[in-house]
């Protein structure tokens, strides 16, 4: 190999492409393994218990053709993302206050623990009683369940603001705007972002769960219907749909966002070996 002659920029782009293909390749391999095990399960237990992967895909295709899948996916996305957005907004605000003020933190922390301890299914039941028929049950469940997760992340972030860096900024007479953008936001983000990623995955699952039990429009409703009809292939098709949506949201939005927002968290192996001054 004559990599030494390749300009660094080109070499870097090449490395990134290879890394991307390698990641894609490994994902494909593990998915194929899963499909193989799935197929084997189908051979043993039959279609009623476990329809074959291809049957499931065919069922999904039928759902799409009939114009059922699209609106259901949209309804679930609306519930999950709406609840997620609301929980993020409120959670970051409450968590920041709780992290900055010791008193507020002492008040908020037990509440967060209580709310984290309540099983999500309990919230669904309550939501169905409180919001029966209004279609708000799923959003409510998502908000109350993901809120404590975001609050904890934001609280940790606000608590661990580096006093030394703050002193440095003050010594350089940094205006508030610079302190916010250069100091507080990046630090908070490093704590809040992982919490948001967790909350995002959680919100999706909770929205589907609330829809199954509440019978409100969405992927969950489709699942409930498939259960009533004992149509396992269709149930699997809905699961695949929910999974594809969540994974593409994580892979196409959250991960690139993380890489863009936190390039400074480069893997340790790329750290220079040290040496010179």
């Amino acid at each position, binding site marked *: 190999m004559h990599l030494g002659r390749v300009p660094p920029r080109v070499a870097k782009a090449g490395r990134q492409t290879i890394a991307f293909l390698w990641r894609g390749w490994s994902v494909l391999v593990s998915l194929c393994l899963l499909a193989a095990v799935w197929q084997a399960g189908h051979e043993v237990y039959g279609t009623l218990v476990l329809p074959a992967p291809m049957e499931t895909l065919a069922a999904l295709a039928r759902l799409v053709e009939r114009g059922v899948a699209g609106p259901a996916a949209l309804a679930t996305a609306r519930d999950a993302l709406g609840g997620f957005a609301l929980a993020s907004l409120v959670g970051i605000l409450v968590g920041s206050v709780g992290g900055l003020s010791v008193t507020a933190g002492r008040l908020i922390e037990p509440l967060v623990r209580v709310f984290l301890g309540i099983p999500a299914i309990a919230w669904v039941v309550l939501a169905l009683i409180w919001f029966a028929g209004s279609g708000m049950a799923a959003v409510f469940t998502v908000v109350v369940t993901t809120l404590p997760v975001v609050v904890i992340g934001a609280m940790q972030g606000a608590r661990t603001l580096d006093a*030394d*860096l703050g*002193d*440095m*900024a*003050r*010594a*350089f*007479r*940094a*205006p508030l705007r*610079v302190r916010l953008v*250069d*100091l507080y936001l*990046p*630090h908070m983000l*490093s704590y809040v972002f992982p919490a948001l990623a967790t909350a995002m995955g959680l919100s999706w699952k909770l929205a589907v769960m609330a829809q199954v039990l509440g019978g409100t429009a969405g992927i969950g409703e489709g699942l409930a219907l498939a259960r009533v009809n004992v149509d396992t292939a269709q149930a699997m098709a809905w699961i695949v749909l929910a999974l594809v949506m969540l994974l593409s949201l994580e892979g196409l939005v959250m991960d690139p966002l993380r890489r863009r927002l*936190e*390039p*400074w968290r*480069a893997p340790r192996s*790329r*750290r*220079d070996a*040290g*040496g*010179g*001054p």
Partner: protein
Amino acid sequence: MTVMPGHRPTAASDSPGAPPLAWRGVSFLAGGRAILEDLTLEVPAGGVLALVGPSGCGKTTLLNLAAGLLRPSAGQVAVTARRVASMFQDARLLPWRRARQNAAFGLRCLGVPRHARLDAAQALLESLGLAAEDGDKFPHQLSGGMRQRVALARALAIEPDLLLLDEPFSALDAVLRRDLQDLVRAAVAERAVTTVFVTHDLFEAARVSDRIAVMAGGPGRVAHVAGPGATTLQDHDDDAVMARVRALRAHPAVAAAFRAGRPEARP
């Protein structure tokens, strides 16, 4: 007045105005304990003044008062310097910003436009011995010595007329420490920046500074101020430094100050 390379020797005598920095009758209490008591010290314009003394004698507090990070319990901290820059024991770089952006932080605080400040920071980094591509690196990709160079660039970038250095070399190993000491001396002399340099190491003080104020602890006060004496800063070779340290140690107030803080008086 001391002769420093690139520095007008008469800088102090032809500006009869107030000194860039003075502590006048300053006391500082923390948790009911007196850290500093009725301390008066003037920092004349130009040159490097070392504040040296055993650990816990209030040197860093004195510097933080000058930087405006603390307020005195009594007395007055008079800063007439236009721009004050600081360098700390650890580099205190923003981990999420590249070396160049970190070096430009002070300029950003002054509202210098993005391109101008980044170009200035990059040039400064390279003049302080960093490679061109190091400007793109994040702090965790730099060694301790390189991080301190970035911190020095950040301080020098705003063209300060008062530079406050709080043990900036103490986290470095011996060889690196000497390199950086020379670099700081040269940079400070070239720009004729009035510099206050805090250290617990008498050798380091003798090597880097023209004036040395020896502090004694419990509560902190100035025990002795030594002028530049016969040594000019050009001959800061080891023999001259040793001679200077010996002369200082011979002074009863200095000896007493360092005896009191024995365990940490010398590294």
